[in-house]
């Protein structure tokens, strides 16, 4: 339990770093570390496949995509964030921590839930048989993503007349 909380705190800290670090590469890397921690949390929550996906795809592939983009856009003007925004962040964070804590505490025993027995079957059966529609949708999403990249990086055949 304690390890879990430490992991969660680490996740939050690296997320905060990801938005506060000035260097975008470092920010992307701390996002990757946060993903890694999230993956470990998934493992510990008995969701190994999700953990593997999180680590390989999000911490790996998406980070690579981010770094690629940062590299491609490096030559432009540096966009500096306002100092006030960064300075004010801890204040807001603490404020939200308090609100969040109070809300969750007040909800603590209030959310009723149906009792649920242990699941049957294996992960594969659930994914393939119970959530088949999601697989179809996944195909659609992947197709959409690929086509979006194709469309956005196409060479223009001719210039549009504005």
């Amino acid at each position, binding site marked *: 339990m304690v390890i879990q909380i430490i992991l969660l705190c680490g996740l939050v800290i690296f997320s905060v770093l990801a938005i506060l670090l000035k260097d975008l590469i470092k920010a992307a890397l701390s996002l990757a570390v946060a993903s890694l921690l999230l993956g470990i949390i998934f493992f510990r929550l008995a*969701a190994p496949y999700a953990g593997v996906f999180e680590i390989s795809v999000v911490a790996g592939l998406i980070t690579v995509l981010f770094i690629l983009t940062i590299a491609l856009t490096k030559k432009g003007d540096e966009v500096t964030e306002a100092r006030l925004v960064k300075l004010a962040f801890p204040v807001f964070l603490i404020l939200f921590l308090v609100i969040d804590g109070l809300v969750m505490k007040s909800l603590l025993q209030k959310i009723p839930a149906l009792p649920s027995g242990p699941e049957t079957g294996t992960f594969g059966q659930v994914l393939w048989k119970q*959530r088949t529609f999601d697989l179809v949708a996944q195909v659609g999403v992947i197709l959409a993503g690929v086509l979006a990249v194709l469309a956005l990086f196409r060479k223009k055949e001719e210039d549009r007349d504005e």
Partner: protein
Amino acid sequence: MSNLWFLYLFFAALLVFIGLYCLLTMRNLIRLFIAVEIISKGVSLAIVATGAVKNNILLAQSLAITYIVVEVALVAAALALIINIYKKNRSLDVRLLSKLKG
């Protein structure tokens, strides 16, 4: 077991807040998208934790995986957009993206 759920939801809400704060105040397009990623981490944490706490982990796991796939497609589309915007603008400042108004 139920109290544990609120612990995870607490952290998920925290992540969503961090992302929203960045989206609302910061300027760099790439950083904004990092913020979106943080929000989606919060969401996937909530999904898996809910499944784990409520004895539904197999189902929640498959949802989380599907959600990650969606995330990848979104990242691809969004980063492609950002690169295209950079090509036009030579800048990543979100404040410059205010030509359409009124």
